[in-house]
């Protein structure tokens, strides 16, 4: 028996376990490609939470009331926490925090394209909660069923907390759209800015998504990009209508036959431009992360010195 036969047999057993709905835990055998795909996805997801603090963080000191400020502060703090849960899940696969942070700061690692757009007005904070977090919840509810135990568990914890994010955003939009003409206009301009970039969050069409078949076979993803995007549209179009907002898509129409909303084509050139580092804020986001890391170096040095002294004492 040669080693490739043994690997074939192990792969067969691994796929049988996943088909039975079992969770893979650290220590269990897994194909190298499963490990590689998970580290790629989970670390990108962690980076998205960390970079995701930046567009909203700028509005904490500008929030229109103390209540809104408390809520936004708590939301941004949650995102920092979610980044920690996810880095932890990637570490169970052998990735180190140092490697992952280095990959982000050098520009090698990707993160969600949505966070490369600016939050230009207060209404954008509402749009991030209502649109971006609704999209995130759909994706993360799927990932809570992921075949890899530590990732699934991090997702369950995050989904429970993320519902607050969505609802505080809807509350902001509700009050703006019920407010003065200027407030309604601010909300309309914000939805014009965020609608298409949010649809891009789900990633390329299934036909152009090279990783999807392997991810589905191994239970990492259980739904496709287009499937999730359609559910998002079916859910949010009626909400936009209730708010009295006009979505910036002239081709949007309800298809009685299928029960789904049909929509126009996404600007994939823009998607590729933003994902490859040329969106409106890519540079600023990475610079902010690098600066935060550099400015925290003395804290890490002090903690290391303290740790070394504790070890000597012990």
């Amino acid at each position: 028996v040669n080693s490739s036969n043994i690997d074939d047999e192990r792969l067969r057993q691994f796929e049988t376990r996943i088909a039975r709905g079992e969770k893979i835990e650290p220590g269990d055998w897994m194909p190298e490609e499963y490990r590689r795909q998970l580290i790629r996805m989970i670390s990108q997801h962690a980076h998205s939470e960390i970079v995701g603090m930046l567009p909203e963080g700028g509005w904490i000191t500008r929030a229109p009331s103390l209540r809104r400020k408390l809520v936004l502060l708590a939301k941004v703090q949650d995102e920092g926490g979610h980044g920690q849960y996810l880095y932890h899940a990637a570490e169970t696969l052998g990735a180190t925090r140092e490697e992952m942070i280095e990959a982000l700061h050098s520009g090698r690692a990707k993160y969600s394209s949505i966070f490369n757009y600016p939050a230009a007005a207060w209404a954008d904070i509402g749009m991030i909660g209502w649109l971006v977090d609704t999209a995130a919840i759909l994706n993360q509810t799927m990932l809570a069923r992921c075949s890899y135990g530590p990732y699934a568990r991090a997702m369950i914890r995050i989904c429970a907390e993320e519902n607050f994010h969505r609802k505080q955003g809807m509350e902001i939009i509700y009050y703006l759209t019920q407010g003065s003409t200027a407030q309604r206009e601010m909300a309309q301009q914000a939805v014009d800015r965020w609608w298409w970039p949010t649809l891009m969050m789900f990633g390329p069409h299934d036909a152009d998504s090279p990783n999807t078949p392997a991810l589905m076979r191994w239970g990492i993803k259980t739904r496709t990009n287009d499937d999730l995007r359609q559910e998002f549209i079916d859910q949010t179009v009626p909400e936009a209508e209730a708010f009295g907002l006009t979505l910036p898509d002239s081709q949007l129409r309800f298809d009685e036959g299928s029960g789904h909303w049909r929509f126009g084509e996404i600007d994939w050139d823009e998607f590729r431009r933003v994902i490859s580092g040329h969106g409106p804020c890519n540079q600023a986001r990475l610079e902010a992360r690098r600066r935060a890391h550099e400015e925290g170096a003395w804290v890490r040095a002090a903690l290391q010195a303290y740790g070394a002294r504790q070890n000597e004492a012990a």
Partner: protein
Amino acid sequence: VSDSQLSRFEVFVQGRKGAAYVHAGSVHAPDPELALLNARDVFSRRPNCHSLWVVPADRILRRTVEQLSAGAETDSPATPGKSETFLVFGKIGHRGSHVFLGETAAAGSSQALSRGQEAFGHLDVTSWWIVAEATRSISAPEEARAWFDPAKDKPFRDHAFYPVETFMRNLGRGRRQQAR
């Protein structure tokens, strides 16, 4: 000095007095005291925490049933010799996290694993973690109120704080009235 993210500690949360400690995730810290502090910040933003345990991640003996059935050697990170107390954690079935099952006295973590399997084997454990009690640190009970009660003062962290369903119903009603 190289830039380091320090050591990893596994974190276990007790939701309320008397409940089992459940694994929540991990934190990085130079020592157990700061690991507890980080764990408090990362894992108790909601009012869901009564007490915390932290354990250095590299001091845990971990074995999945797959590893055990493949005959994995259960060499122990702790030194065998005189008997000490071990904490036995298990993930039951394929849902949920590692949960504290109970204690056992053993000479080394391999023996503690065998004893854990004897005592809790009927529970359909799919993954075992064995922790020497001496390596576990506990959040100070006298600090529990100062550490965990502030989360109770932040109801706006709960989605139920926002009456969004009522808003959307009101909007629907308004629209129908306009149409009439």
